[in-house]
């Protein structure tokens, strides 16, 4: 058996995993885990001013990549597929247009891409990546909330034990941590803007929790 870590691209293509498109095309209406909350109507009818702005980035493609951060060929392949390098420093992220990569652990990254591009990108990974790696489409398992506004840090402080001061949590930093007794992967995308990747099964609970926690600041839902 050949060494999985030292296979050529052709050898690894021969062992290629069966890949199928798990995301329905545009002809089928996708429903996010917060479909029942009808955020689109709340955005139209709800308040237009408040300290917290919430928007669901629904139906994105979530790809979990596990590979070897010391394998230069794999790092180059990721760059060929996404046009941006894997963030190798702990707790950092990189992005290229609609593609963004989050450091999750020393050998794991979460890649978010537009939902309908997911299968193309998966297929490209299967063609480009050499050696031993894993790429899993976890799009159905989580959703993304974008929180912003002048009180966003006050709100997050109620939910998570991480230090949110911009000195220790600068723009671009990513942490996986506890969030309101659930868990979330939090990325700072602006001084007063954060992105939360949350579990599908906790999304309704967190939606209720966020409404309650933002009562004192005023919650504006954006479509």
């Amino acid at each position, binding site marked *: 058996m050949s060494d999985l870590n030292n296979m050529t691209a052709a050898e690894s293509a021969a062992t290629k995993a069966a890949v199928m498109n798990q995301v329905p095309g545009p002809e089928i209406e996708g429903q996010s885990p917060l479909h029942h909350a009808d955020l689109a109507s709340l955005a139209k009818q709800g308040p237009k001013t408040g300290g917290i702005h919430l928007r669901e980035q629904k139906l994105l493609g979530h790809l979990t990549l596990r590979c070897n951060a010391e394998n230069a060929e794999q790092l180059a392949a990721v760059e060929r597929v996404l046009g941006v390098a894997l963030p190798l420093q702990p*707790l950092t992220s990189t992005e290229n247009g609609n593609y963004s990569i989050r450091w*999750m652990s*020393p050998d794991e990254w979460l890649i978010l891409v537009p939902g309908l591009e997911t299968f193309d990108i998966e297929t490209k990974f299967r063609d480009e990546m050499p050696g031993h790696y894993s790429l899993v489409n976890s799009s159905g398992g989580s959703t993304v909330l974008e929180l912003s506004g002048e009180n966003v840090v006050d709100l997050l402080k109620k939910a998570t*034990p*991480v230090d949110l001061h911009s000195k220790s949590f600068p723009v671009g930093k990513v942490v996986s*941590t*506890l969030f309101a007794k659930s868990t979330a992967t939090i990325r700072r995308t602006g001084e007063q803007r954060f992105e939360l990747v949350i579990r599908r099964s906790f999304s309704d609970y967190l939606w209720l929790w966020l409404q309650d926690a933002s009562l004192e600041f005023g919650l504006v839902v954006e479509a």
Partner: protein
Amino acid sequence: MLHIYCPHCAEYREEDEFHCAGQAHIARPLDPEACSDQEWGEYLFFRKNPRGLHHELWVHAAGCRKFFNMTRDTQSYEIKEVYKIGEQPSVVAE
């Protein structure tokens, strides 16, 4: 509440994010079939319970989900050091 340094995330986090997974450096017998019942039983069930320095396995459960080792004083709760799996402790009991 312990403030724990995760050697993978390279920063301090609250204890809530971690779980202790028991004693560290327990080597699985290379040939389990050749073990006596006593040797196998001790490997599976018997653990140290020192008063003082203890080497423990911890996992950053809500963070990077990686395991690492910690040397901790069970009496004062002071964390002496954390080190990655495969490394040896530099602080050991006399």
